[in-house]
């Protein structure tokens, strides 16, 4: 009797396992056709974005550019924010989101896995106003097909507490070679892509490594970056990916120096006495794109959002709030030319000092063909090893 029941049970579980594996092996990659005209709006649209990109006034009544969109188009917005590009790609793969604002280290992966659809930029009138040097770049298009429209761009800055870190730093060395002075109070961004920050530092300080692109590291160069980060790990108090966590850590003095975003600097109270700089070595940064899911339930509302967020007024509000350069020159009229200048909007020389996040792949991005570069999977592994 017991063995019979057991047999039945095992047969059932086997069937269940079969059903599961069956599901997993079927990986459909939808090839949606590019729309030529927009249909009726669906009434809702769900967005996945970096914090501060989709503000409806619930965080701060003064910052609301979503309500106007809802009034104009009738598309009600639901949104979710994420902390790292890895989190974004895994959330977006659930298919629950129509639109994603992704950085260059996520966009190519989303395009390659078929999770985002090719865009018809003719359906996005405000795309015409976008800076030309942001259009059809390797991180938002493939083979001339456009997958993303630019949102804005900026650099990962160095933030420090003025009353603790003296003299005021000009170099990243305060978080690397000289980080022992702030043992236990150094912070760093918790993502494998942070390895590129170490590579940028090595580019300036260890020229014998011949790093020309922080995202194209061969095994030797990667190892040098890992060693640098392992030395840094000893002095790191905590890593952050939740920007609220970093704000709190700097407010209480649990962190005193480390990487940051402009939006974090803007959110700090005056009492915290922080400063932020773009160090002399240059910095990693991001150039973000809005993309539409290949499985979007509300593609028409999604197109409307892409058009809206690139329109000068909304783009000015969103990028101004986050603290990054807008995607269109016209946005500067709304955010003020002085603010725009402080983000170096449209300044191609400054933009060249920023190494935009992109996905490291085996074919070296810097054009080398004699070596194989380390890919993102290797970086992820290395990052776990660094944290230990």
């Amino acid at each position: 009797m017991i063995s019979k029941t057991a047999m039945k049970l095992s047969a059932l579980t086997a069937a269940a396992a079969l059903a599961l594996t069956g599901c997993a092996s079927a990986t459909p990659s939808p090839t949606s056709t590019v729309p030529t005209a927009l249909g009726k709006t669906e009434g809702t649209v769900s967005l996945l974005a970096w914090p501060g990109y989709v503000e409806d006034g619930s965080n701060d009544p003064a910052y609301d550019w979503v309500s106007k969109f809802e009034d104009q188009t009738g598309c009600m917005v639901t949104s979710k924010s994420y902390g790292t590009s890895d989190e974004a790609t895994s959330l977006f793969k659930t298919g629950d989101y129509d639109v994603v604002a992704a950085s260059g280290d996520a966009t190519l992966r989303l395009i390659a896995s078929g999770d985002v659809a090719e865009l018809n930029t003719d359906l996005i009138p405000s795309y015409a106003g976008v800076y030309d040097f942001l259009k059809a770049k390797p991180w938002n298009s493939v083979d001339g097909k456009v997958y993303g429209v630019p949102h804005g761009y900026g650099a990962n800055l160095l933030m420090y507490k003025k009353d603790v870190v003296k003299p005021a730093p000009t170099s990243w060395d305060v978080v690397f070679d000289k980080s022992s002075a702030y043992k236990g109070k150094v912070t760093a961004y918790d993502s494998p892509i942070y390895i590129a920050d170490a590579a940028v530092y090595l580019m300036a300080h260890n020229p014998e490594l011949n790093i020309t692109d922080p995202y194209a590291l061969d095994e030797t160069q990667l190892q040098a970056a890992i060693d640098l980060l392992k030395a840094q790990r000893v002095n790191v108090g905590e890593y952050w990916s939740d920007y609220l966590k970093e704000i709190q850590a700097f407010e209480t003095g649990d962190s005193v120096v480390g990487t940051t975003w402009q939006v974090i600097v803007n959110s700090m109270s005056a009492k915290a006495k922080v400063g932020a700089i773009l160090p002399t070595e240059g910095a990693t940064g991001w150039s973000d794109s809005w993309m539409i899911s290949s499985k979007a339930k509300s593609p028409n509302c999604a197109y409307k959002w892409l058009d809206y967020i690139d329109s000068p007024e909304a783009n000015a509000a969103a990028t101004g709030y986050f603290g990054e350069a807008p995607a269109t020159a016209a946005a500067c009229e709304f955010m003020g030319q002085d603010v725009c200048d402080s983000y170096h909007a449209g300044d191609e020389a400054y933009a060249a000092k920023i190494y935009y996040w992109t996905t490291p792949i085996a074919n070296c991005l810097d054009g080398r063909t004699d070596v194989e570069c380390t890919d993102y999977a290797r970086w992820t592994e290395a990052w776990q090893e660094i944290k230990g």
Partner: protein
Amino acid sequence: MDKYSALPKQGVETPALARRISTLLYSKVKLRLTLLLAAPLTWLVLVYIAALLALLVTALYSVDSYTSQIQTQLTFKNVLKVLTGQVYQTVALRTLGIALLVTIVDTLIALPIAFYMAKIASPRLQRLLVIAVLMPLWASYLVKAYAWRSVLSNEGIMQWLLRPLGLDTPGYGITATIITLGYLWLPYVILPIYAGLERVPNSLLEASGDLGAKTSTTLRLVMLPMLVPAIIAGSIFSFSLTMGDYITVNIVGGANQMLGNLVATNVGNNLPLAAAIALIPVLIMFGYLTAVRKTGALENL
């Protein structure tokens, strides 16, 4: 009118059908049992066993390193990597150590509290204390973890309390993780021990005293052996909950990571590796529960 004329007919038919079904079920024991168990068994198989199997099978897959798409050819690559990789061993040991320490700390705190609740407090106070122990469970896990983040911070209340004694807050790190997890799981440890203590008859303690045993001897030789199953039952909660945790260590653990963090890091881009890592706590828990089963503590849950 029709409504009423239809009624008697129904009234006759339904009981007849019901009676026939009940007769059938009464005579066929196996059918009755099958029907009774079908729903819970389906639930168990689908939610529990199938999920575990899916975890096992997923651990044998691999991914395309660029697109993160899962490839379904079976390989032991990930399992081997987890078994041999230095970082996984370090983190597994750290997690195990934290789980053991949390369990020990919780048991040490829970024993006197549970003893007071069960044996000393008046019935009225007893009820109040049970409510007090359960009260923290009404607040969200996250709220409590973030509360500890602020308590343990540089400018937190802990620093303010310890400063006059010449001490500093432990800050964020493994100590903070143990304190926070110990706080979070304490109710789950107190309750089984309290229940176990309630079952110890007072007469035994009195008899021990009458025979000349000192309080400490009574506690050690009479109370403790009877309490072991209850303590183990409590430890299962604190141990297993700690083994799987990754949020607390993220909030107060500083730069440290536990097994849960490794799973969380990989779940987006390398699901098979995440599944392989998740097998470590499953195996440890399996070993722990097998050992515990022999003590009979599971009947005390």
